[in-house]
């Protein structure tokens, strides 16, 4: 590059500025607003009185401990389920690998709050399992009682984050690391404890911190299970019952943000300099051991038990959607098909709303994601890393906090040229979903662009294509798999979003499907139609997940070819 080359073009700076303004308006300002209100008196003077008030309420102290307890217990239980499964797939030769991959994806296609009501029917006090236990052995297990239920449902939903991260981490460990330990006399559990687990620890920490954040911030699951003595439900209840001015709600938000951000920052701090990415260097492909017969029994037993547990909410919802009456019985006592037509007729508005909000949000996500990826990886526009950092921070922003922040920040703002308030229009959903799903889309776009070798662009420019034409004809076509995967991921995760959705739904005609399910599940008679709507949602999400996996896989193959052609190492 000659000294005369400017560091960036006007167009690049304009794009960066526009994205920056968007992020500041709809991410930074709402969060700061929440924090500001938590620390100020109505007259604007600084105060800690709201925090004192918070800790003086025994319900708040209880909610605080409960949220911490639930998040920590969920991480522990998820670890117990996920780590053995990950170790099994990565280090042993057996045919259960497909099963375990299924285990990893299945829970993700069904939002935790949807599964929660089915779990009540299966594992609740008078649910299927406890009825059987009562009949056979004369006792019941309080699996779904209070906090136990939240922990149980969240664990089954979120353990895949640990499973996937640890599996990848294990697969990335150079086999020589373990072989050299064996060579020096180590084997069995000692080998695992001293070498394998420490090397996979970064992956574990990444997964575990994510689980902690998700569970700590979750609003939908506790609400559906009618557990309100936790932080997120309390924030929601204070704001909706006492009012948007109640400072305690904001204090809760600050606590949620503080814990989420410190969990994320803590894991990043821990991972710093510890990224033991020690991929094989031409070594032998795998170090898979054979399972002895009794090990096989144990392994398959474990996998099947976990699979059954994971399938139970899916099965439960499916049964519920066809049931006329299901209470105090092993299985539904009367069957019906009418929930589906009813739901499609009554809720077509919600289905349409979901498609509209999530489709638009996903589109904005990939456009902004692609732009930021390009700015970060290919230009020297000042502040490009700040954009990346802001989006990444959105990952740690609880939906409840953003929801409350939006309601407060934009409460008197009207959409230009209309008489409608922003907070009571459908536009707010699109904005909220875009901000919250942007981190996923950005990761996808970043990865896609980093796979496009720079020489492919340089050769286009060398042949006369301008920077804009190069992006249009070379960069975007080569990134398209990643962009599409980012779109689908953003779409399906937005479709099952519940925390912000509950807060932002000002009237029923604006509600998306996720809110519909939540609403139906509130009443006994609504369970059937709610389940039917949930099945439809899960199908949409499952198809989306399948498409996105497919896109990622073909992209990988495609990109390898581009890689080789580019002569990269």
């Amino acid at each position, binding site marked *: 590059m000659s000294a005369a080359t400017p560091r960036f073009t006007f167009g690049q700076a304009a794009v960066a500025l526009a994205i920056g303004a968007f992020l500041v308006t709809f991410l930074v300002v709402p969060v700061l607003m929440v924090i500001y209100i938590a620390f100020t008196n109505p007259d604007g003077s600084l105060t800690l009185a709201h925090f004192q008030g918070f800790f003086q309420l025994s319900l708040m102290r209880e909610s605080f401990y409960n949220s911490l307890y639930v998040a920590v217990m969920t991480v522990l239980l998820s670890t117990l389920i996920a780590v053995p499964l990950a170790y099994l797939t990565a280090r042993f030769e057996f045919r259960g690998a497909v099963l375990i991959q299924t285990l990893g994806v299945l829970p993700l296609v069904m939002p935790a709050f949807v599964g929660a009501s089915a779990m009540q029917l299966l594992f609740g006090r008078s649910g299927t399992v406890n009825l059987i236990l009562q009949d056979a052995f004369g006792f019941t297990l309080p699996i779904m009682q209070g906090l136990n239920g939240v922990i149980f449902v969240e664990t089954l939903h979120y353990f895949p984050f640990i499973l996937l991260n640890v599996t990848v981490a294990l697969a990335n460990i150079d086999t020589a690391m373990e*072989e050299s330990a064996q060579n020096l006399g*180590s084997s069995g559990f000692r080998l695992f404890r001293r070498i394998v687990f420490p090397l996979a620890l970064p992956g574990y920490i990444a997964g575990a911190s994510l689980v902690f954040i998700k569970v700590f911030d979750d609003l939908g699951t506790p609400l559906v299970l009618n557990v309100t003595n936790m932080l997120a439900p309390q924030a929601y209840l204070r704001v909706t019952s006492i009012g948007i001015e109640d400072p305690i709600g904001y204090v809760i938000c600050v606590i949620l943000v503080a814990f989420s951000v410190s969990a994320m920052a803590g894991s990043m701090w821990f991972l710093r300099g510890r990224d033991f990415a020690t991929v094989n260097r031409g070594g032998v492909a795998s170090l898979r051991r054979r399972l002895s017969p009794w090990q096989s029994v144990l392994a398959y037993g474990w996998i099947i038990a976990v699979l059954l547990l994971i399938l139970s909410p899916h099965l439960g919802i499916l049964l519920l959607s066809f049931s006329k009456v299901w209470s105090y019985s092993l299985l539904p006592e009367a069957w019906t098909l009418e929930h589906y037509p009813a739901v499609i007729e009554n809720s077509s508005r919600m289905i349409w709303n979901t498609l509209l909000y999530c489709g638009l949000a996903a589109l904005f996500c990939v456009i902004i994601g692609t732009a930021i990826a390009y700015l970060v990886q290919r230009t020297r526009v000042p502040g490009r890393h700040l954009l990346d950092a802001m989006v990444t921070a959105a990952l740690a922003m609880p939906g409840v906090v953003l929801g409350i922040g939006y309601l407060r920040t934009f409460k008197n703002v009207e959409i230009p040229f209309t008489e409608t308030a922003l907070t009571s229009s459908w536009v707010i959903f699109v904005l909220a979903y875009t901000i919250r799903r942007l981190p996923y889309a950005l990761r996808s776009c970043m990865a896609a662009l980093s796979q496009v070798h720079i020489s492919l662009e340089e050769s286009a420019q060398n042949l006369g294509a301008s920077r804009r034409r190069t992006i249009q004809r070379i960069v975007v076509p080569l990134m398209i798999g990643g962009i599409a995967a980012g779109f689908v991921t953003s779409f399906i995760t937005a479709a099952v979003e519940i925390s912000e959705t509950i807060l932002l739904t000002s009237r029923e005609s604006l509600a998306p499907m996720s809110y519909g399910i939540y609403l139906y599940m509130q009443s006994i008679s609504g369970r059937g139609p709610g389940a039917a709507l949930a099945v439809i949602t899960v199908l949409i999400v499952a198809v989306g997940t399948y498409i996105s996996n497919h896109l990622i896989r073909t992209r990988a193959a495609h990109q390898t070819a581009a890689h080789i052609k580019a002569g990269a190492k």
Partner: protein
Amino acid sequence: MGPNNKVRVDISNVSLAYGPTVVLRDVSLAIEPGEFFALLGPSGSGKSTLLRMIAGFTQPQSGQILVAGEDITRVPPWKRDIGMVFQNYALWPHMTVAENVAFGLEERRLPTEDVRRRVAAALELVGLSELAARRPGQLSGGQQQRVAVARTIAIEPKVLLLDEPLSNLDAKLRLHMRTELLLLQRKLGITTIFVTHDQEEALSISDRVAVLDAGVIQQVGTPMDLFDNPVNRFIANFVGTINLMKGELRDGGRVFEAPDIGRIAMPPGVAPPGGRVEIAFRPHALALVAQGAAGGADRIEVPGTVSHREFLGEFVRYRVNVGATEIVADQTHYGGQPDFAPGAAVAVRIDPAQIKFLAA
């Protein structure tokens, strides 16, 4: 770490195949106590697999591996007491240098005091005592290798295995470490087997070399023996540079006739009496002179034209077109030595005693 622990390693009739792909075929080797033994071969020759078998990471489908006369073929790696230094060193990034070196001793449940003493001794031996508290990521490639060596010899293994030990080092360091490894091995007296694809490396430091190709041992011998008496075309080509020419011996070995270069008269008593052979001779074992130059009556003389000339410092490498083939000729360079430009008409003079006859 005394010299009394020298053991022999016997590999007998070891075979391994994955489906139709033969990895090792009926490999037998006897490695003497205290020997510095090289397994040399191109990539895919099976040399690394053989080394991994000795360490226990791969099982042969048939055959046996004996260490000090004891069959260890089915013993798991962690019970073998055979130290291996991995190609990429495989230092654990979550442990310090000292913790890495202590690992094997701790696995052997040695008293803390002994562990400390032996770690210090091993690090002292490789000259890294002052880096004990560092992490592997903070070390240079050469230092990492020393740690890997220290970690392995700390357990005082019966046999030391080195997998391409110098391949990850830069050229200068490689020469240095090569000497150091040999000195260390001599000091410890430990039976050492090392794998390499670099013939120069194998020839320069090992006592004996086994050359593998396509899973089969082609030749075993001292470096000089392999260089001087290659048993087949593969060895001749793989060990050093050589000129090869296929042809037929006639008239009781008095005439060598090759389609590329025509008839060459052979002095009596040099060649076998007849049949199809391949003659082989080294580029440095021949002389290049102007055509029609005097002398050379006791040499085989072949006329040709210089096609290419490379100046390599100590010598000049010429490529000479002879008939339809090409002969590589290395001429030592010093003051007053004649220099031939491409296109020059020259004669290649070959000392008959330096010609090897290989079965064609």
